[in-house]
């Protein structure tokens, strides 16, 4: 080569470098505060106490706020009810706060179009309308405990309007009325741990029946008692999440619960009750015997049929009869969050008044009756008869679409308030941040402004008017009302909980509706199947559907997501030739809905079940409201409850009549339907995989008897596992692997401190290295006896670790795009770092009449000491850290996915598309959802593998804090997001190498095992076996099918 040629080539290659190298020049701006807020440090989180308003319970929460933006919610440990736990719905409140489909400011309808107006215009409009007389006007508010009720009542009285309706469609009116009659409180505390037997008649106390989180904490505590834990029997036509946690399922036909309860109370015979219920008489007889022997018992009832009140009364009577009141039913610590709630029958009556043209004006805040009221009531038709309708909704939901004016409220995390969930304790709701959208205003302040507009005959001008507004705001009102005044209010903000009692709202029951329009009894109806409907444990009455985390959260029972489904028993399905995923049509009252079939063991063959929560629709064709002329998704909102909810699934209430139960509550299960196979079929969006373990021993369990043997003998240790040996069971061989930071055979000589290896540089892996990194072994225990499968951990993980949701219809490939919600999930592209695997045991033939058991296993990266993923990575992007973490280095990863192929636990997830990249259509965090992103965690790009990191950012934060304070880590000082959220306290995280951490004690438990221990992976996650309580008499007679033919007339 000539010298000239060489230089030419050199020049060309240098030029190539210059043009192809990434440009690090554009690194943005550093914008300081104008005035630095007190007590905040940039880059360090500030924590504000507040109250969760995602359901009526009102748990105390702590909002982590970084640089003015709320990033994460956790339970407030000072709250005696929720005790620091928070459910999935509560976790996702931040996605309500940052929802891209939030109204930016007030809007007015003109004809079929909407236009943005100013607050001035809006308040003037309302004030004018009220001035014209609103005596019979209605205010429908989503029920929330605390002072807002009282405030609203005062304001309405001032405006000459009637007391407001404080509604919660998820609440069980019948149960509350029965509780009041029998116990004197609307909702007592159920002390599950004090009971020896729990019997639930459709009372889904883990699914949202009552105060979910406190009840789950108490239930898990009871189940954690191991040998002494109460047995749990579930009676109902459909096994809900609560039902799946039961030791025994009595699959009673809907409407037969009263007969069973009466039999248990000593009226009638077992045969009569069994005839009505369609279950073997022996099962009921055994239950009766057990109930008499196992005292105190706890009997709960929350059925959906038209006789719900009678059933609830009978259950309460049973508690009184068997001495449960005072021990298992604690009336001294009631949940008072539901006091002042308006029964649903009044909402139904109000709709009739609207239809009759008696209501001049309607205000609706925080609730969406146009979605959740059964279409048989025709809420939209009634609304059309009201001349002036105002919505305070944050979101473009179905109800708001029917209104004339939108005055968008602030989110609960942006506003002031108080809540009273339990007697003698007030929780304070303070804003965790400034409003996301400056154009939104707190409803209370808007109402005060309207009053000011109406009363100011000679309007004050300039500074005087401004001063009056400052004085006259809701926060000042709140502090004046507060027990102890403003001083006590301010002092209480630190803990969020203050001793005291708020003035109760005067009961408004009976002001509107006295009569009950009871649904016709099921026995008198035509139709092949009884339709069981229930509020989704994920979406509630539908209000969760606009939050992508909840859409992406698999239903705890069926593992279906981004979709609706019809639960059909396999027997029925076989008879009708229906397979999983076949689209079936459910019809009643001349209307029908179509949804894919899900074959479910836990539903009676003569019933089908559907959840409320999905199926949000909009009548507005284009569906977008644009702020300014823009196609920018960040600057427009989608009608139909937002882009994540619209046209996802169906609403079963489209076919339901407005049936009430005998308490005037809504009768969820009051309709017979016909089922038709349409012939269409589609892949069911589900993360289920196989519902069976196929002998893999992933979810292990033992009976209470076996556990007793373990505890008292040890000889029985080798025997447990259901008679057949499960690999890896009954050994503690993993303990050395867990104890040492790096398993010996994983790191070879590096991990072995033997004499011949002395002198070799083991670097950080040497426990004596100055950094002392290798003295720790981060580990986790998961107690399957506690885990209920509620999935709060899953959403907590999404929130903490910036996990993208992938199921939105526009998030799949650009080529061959399929606009099906959840399409990516059907391709296995979901990114749930922690998932809840749900396995059925028993009843292999899927025959009705044979009981089955359910096991839930939270499955996340096991942080193996001897990890199969590590040696196959060609670029060392995954490796074992000295402190026991299996680390994924995103910037090293080139996306070969070898690691995922080699992972026996299948806990590694690949970024198929640019979910974290703003300029791609798959972007999972459209403005302002990206405000929630945890600044401590990298947002992963396309083509990168990711997985559970044991919340390494929390480990490092705690280490940094300890180092700054010149101390060692304190045992149990911090925990991972999943463990912090868990309302069962099933997950415990910590340093297994230090005996002072809880996790190292729990890992020694006799129930401890590793999943796939036979693979010698030396995992850092230790599972504690589930404890079953089969009961002496409950062994189902194998093969003895007692199925009543589904087509037979119901013997009710």
């Amino acid at each position, binding site marked *: 080569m000539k010298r000239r040629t060489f230089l030419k080539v050199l020049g060309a290659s240098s030029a190539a470098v210059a043009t192809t190298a990434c440009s690090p020049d554009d690194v943005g701006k550093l914008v300081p*505060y104008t*005035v*630095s807020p007190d007590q905040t440090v940039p880059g360090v989180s500030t924590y504000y106490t507040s109250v969760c308003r995602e359901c009526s319970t009102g748990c105390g929460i702590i909002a982590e706020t970084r640089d003015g933006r709320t990033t994460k919610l956790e339970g407030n440990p000072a709250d005696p009810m929720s005790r620091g736990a928070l459910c999935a719905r509560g976790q996702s409140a931040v996605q309500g706060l940052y929802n891209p489909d939030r109204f930016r400011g007030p809007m007015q309808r003109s004809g079929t179009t909407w236009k943005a107006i100013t607050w001035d215009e809006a308040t003037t409009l309302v004030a004018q309308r009220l001035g014209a007389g609103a005596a019979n006007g209605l205010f429908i508010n989503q029920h929330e405990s605390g002072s807002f009720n009282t405030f609203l009542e005062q304001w309405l009285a001032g405006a000459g309007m009637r007391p407001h309706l404080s509604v919660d469609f998820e609440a069980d009116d019948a149960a509350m009325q029965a509780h009041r009659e029998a116990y004197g409180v609307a909702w007592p505390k159920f002390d599950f741990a004090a009971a020896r037997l729990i019997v639930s008649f459709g009372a889904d106390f883990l699914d949202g029946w009552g105060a979910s989180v406190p009840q789950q904490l108490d239930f898990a505590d009871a189940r954690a008692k191991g040998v002494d834990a109460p047995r749990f029997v579930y009676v109902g036509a459909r096994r809900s999440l609560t039902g799946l946690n039961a030791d025994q399922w009595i699959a009673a036909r809907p409407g037969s619960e009263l007969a069973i309860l009466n039999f248990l109370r000593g009226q009638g015979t077992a045969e009569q009750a069994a005839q009505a219920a369609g279950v073997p008489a022996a099962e009921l007889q055994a239950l009766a015997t057990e109930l008499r022997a196992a005292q105190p018992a706890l009997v709960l009832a929350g059925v959906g049929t038209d006789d719900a009140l009678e059933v609830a009364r009978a259950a309460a009577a049973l508690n009184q009869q068997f001495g449960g009141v005072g021990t298992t039913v604690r009336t001294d610590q009631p949940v008072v969050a539901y006091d002042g709630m308006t029964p649903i029958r009044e909402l139904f009556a109000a709709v009739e008044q609207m239809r009759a043209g008696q209501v001049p004006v309607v205000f609706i805040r925080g609730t969406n009756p146009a979605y959740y009221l059964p279409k048989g009531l025709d809420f939209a038709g009634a609304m059309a008869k009201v001349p002036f309708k105002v919505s305070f909704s944050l979101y473009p939901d179905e109800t708001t679409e029917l209104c004339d004016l939108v005055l968008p409220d602030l989110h609960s995390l942006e506003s002031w308030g108080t809540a009273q969930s339990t007697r003698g304790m007030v929780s304070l709701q303070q804003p965790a941040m400034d409003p996301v959208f400056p154009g939104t205003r707190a409803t209370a302040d808007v109402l005060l402004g309207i009053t000011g507009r109406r009363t100011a005959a000679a309007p004050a001008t300039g500074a005087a008017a401004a001063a009056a507004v400052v004085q006259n705001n809701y926060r000042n009102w709140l502090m004046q009302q507060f027990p102890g005044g403003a001083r006590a209010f301010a002092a209480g903000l630190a803990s969020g909980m203050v001793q005291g009692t708020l003035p109760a709202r005067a009961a408004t029951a009976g002001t509107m509706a006295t009569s009950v329009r009871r649904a016709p009894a099921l026995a008198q109806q035509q139709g092949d199947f009884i339709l069981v409907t229930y509020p989704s444990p994920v979406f509630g009455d539908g209000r969760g559907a606009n939050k992508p985390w909840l859409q992406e959260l698999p239903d705890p029972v069926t593992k279906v997501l981004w979709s609706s489904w019809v639960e059909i028993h396999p027997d029925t399905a076989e008879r009708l030739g229906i397979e999983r995923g076949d689209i079936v049509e459910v019809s009643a009252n001349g209307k029908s809905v179509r949804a894919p079939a899900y074959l479910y063991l836990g539903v009676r063959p003569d019933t089908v079940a559907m959840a409320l929560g999905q199926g949000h629709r909009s009548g507005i064709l284009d569906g977008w409201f644009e702020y300014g002329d823009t196609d920018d998704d960040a600057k427009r909102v989608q009608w139909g409850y937002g882009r994540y909810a619209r046209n996802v699934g169906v609403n079963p209430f489209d076919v339901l009549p407005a049936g009430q139960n005998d308490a005037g509550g809504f009768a969820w299960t009051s309709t017979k339907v016909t089922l038709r196979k349409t012939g269409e079929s589609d892949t069911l969006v589900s993360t289920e995989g196989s519902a069976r373990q196929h002998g893999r021993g992933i979810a292990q369990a033992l009976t209470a008897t076996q556990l007793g043997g373990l505890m008292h003998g040890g000889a029985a240790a080798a025997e447990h596992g259901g008679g057949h040996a499960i690999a890896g069971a009954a050994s503690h061989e993993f303990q050395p692997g867990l104890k040492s930071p790096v398993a010996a055979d994983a790191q070879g000589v590096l991990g072995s401190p033997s004499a011949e290896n002395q002198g070799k540089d083991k670097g950080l892996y040497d426990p004596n290295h100055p950094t002392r990194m290798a003295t720790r072994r981060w580990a986790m225990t998961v107690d399957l006896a506690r885990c209920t499968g509620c999935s709060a951990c899953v959403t907590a993980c999404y929130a903490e670790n910036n996990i993208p949701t992938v199921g939105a219809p526009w998030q799949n490939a650009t080529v061959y795009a399929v606009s099906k919600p959840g399409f990516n999930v059907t391709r296995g592209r979901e990114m749930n770092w922690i998932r809840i695997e749900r396995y059925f045991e028993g009843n292999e033939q899927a025959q009705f009449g044979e009981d089955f058991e359910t096991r839930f296993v939270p499955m996340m990266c096991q942080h193996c000491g001897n990890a199969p993923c590590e040696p196959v990575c060609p670029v060392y992007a995954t490796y074992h850290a000295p402190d026991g973490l299996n680390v994924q280095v995103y*910037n090293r990863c080139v996306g070969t996915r070898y690691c995922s192929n080699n992972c026996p636990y299948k806990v590694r997830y690949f970024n198929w598309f640019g979910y974290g990249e703003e300029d791609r259509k798959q972007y999972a965090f459209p403005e302002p959802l990206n405000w929630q992103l945890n600044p401590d965690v990298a947002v992963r790009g396309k083509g990168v593998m990711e997985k559970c990191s044991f919340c*390494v950012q929390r480990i490092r934060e705690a280490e940094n804090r300890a*180092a700054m304070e010149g101390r060692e880590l304190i045992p149990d000082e911090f925990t991972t997001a999943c463990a912090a959220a868990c309302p069962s306290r099933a997950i415990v995280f910590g340093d297994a190498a230090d005996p002072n951490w809880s996790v190292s004690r729990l890992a020694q438990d006799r129930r401890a095992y590793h999943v796939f221990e036979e693979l010698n992976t030396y995992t850092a996650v230790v599972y504690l076996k589930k404890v079953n309580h089969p009961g002496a008499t409950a062994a189902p007679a194998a093969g003895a099918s007692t199925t009543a033919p589904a087509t037979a007339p119901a013997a009710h």
Partner: protein
Amino acid sequence: MSTRSKWTAIPGLLALAIGAVLLSAYSGASSAEGRGPAQPIDFPHPVHVQQLGMNCTYCHYAANKSPDAGMPAMSTCAGCHNAAAVGPNRPKRGDQPARTSQPLTKLFEYLDIKGGGVNAKPVPWVRIHKVPDYVTFPHMRHVNAGITCQSCHGKIQEMGQVYQAASLNMGWCVNCHVKGYDPVEGRKLTPATDSLPAPHPPMAAPHGVAEGATPRTTPSFTGERKTARYDCAICHY
């Protein structure tokens, strides 16, 4: 050169080119080292640090207690450059005559001195030092370990216009973490007047677990090279 040898040379040249690309990438050719863009206000670090003897953490107030060093709030500027100085905003001092300083005029515009500060706006400083999203850099650990600001940011006290003094590439970081930081060398970069930030008092823990905390001692300027953890997951997560 014959045609044949010309053709055989191409793969070799190609390999050479690839090698050059890789080598330049490895040696940090993609770093923004030396970049020093113009700022909205010509902020003179030398005046503040050398003439007035201000400590870095007077303005970058979070450097010893947060992962972020912190940019001073506009109110911090206004604390010294108060409104009385409108007009000739540099009053006569010693033998220096009063004069109008252009940077200060700009500052007062941002502070909205004329309007009483009602429409005060923050200065959009152009960011210079930035590590990628997948890197976590805690300032407070480094500052409290006695590492001088200048060790990474260069002699800021002499920079009329701040530029990126170090490459900020991973090799540059790891070099210190493995081989150790020499406090004596780091001290040589600082102005004589400068003192290290005082050790930060125990931080308020989120859930009140600050028990057992002891006050830190002032980092020493002598002694051995100080090494640190260099495991990937210390910075990458």
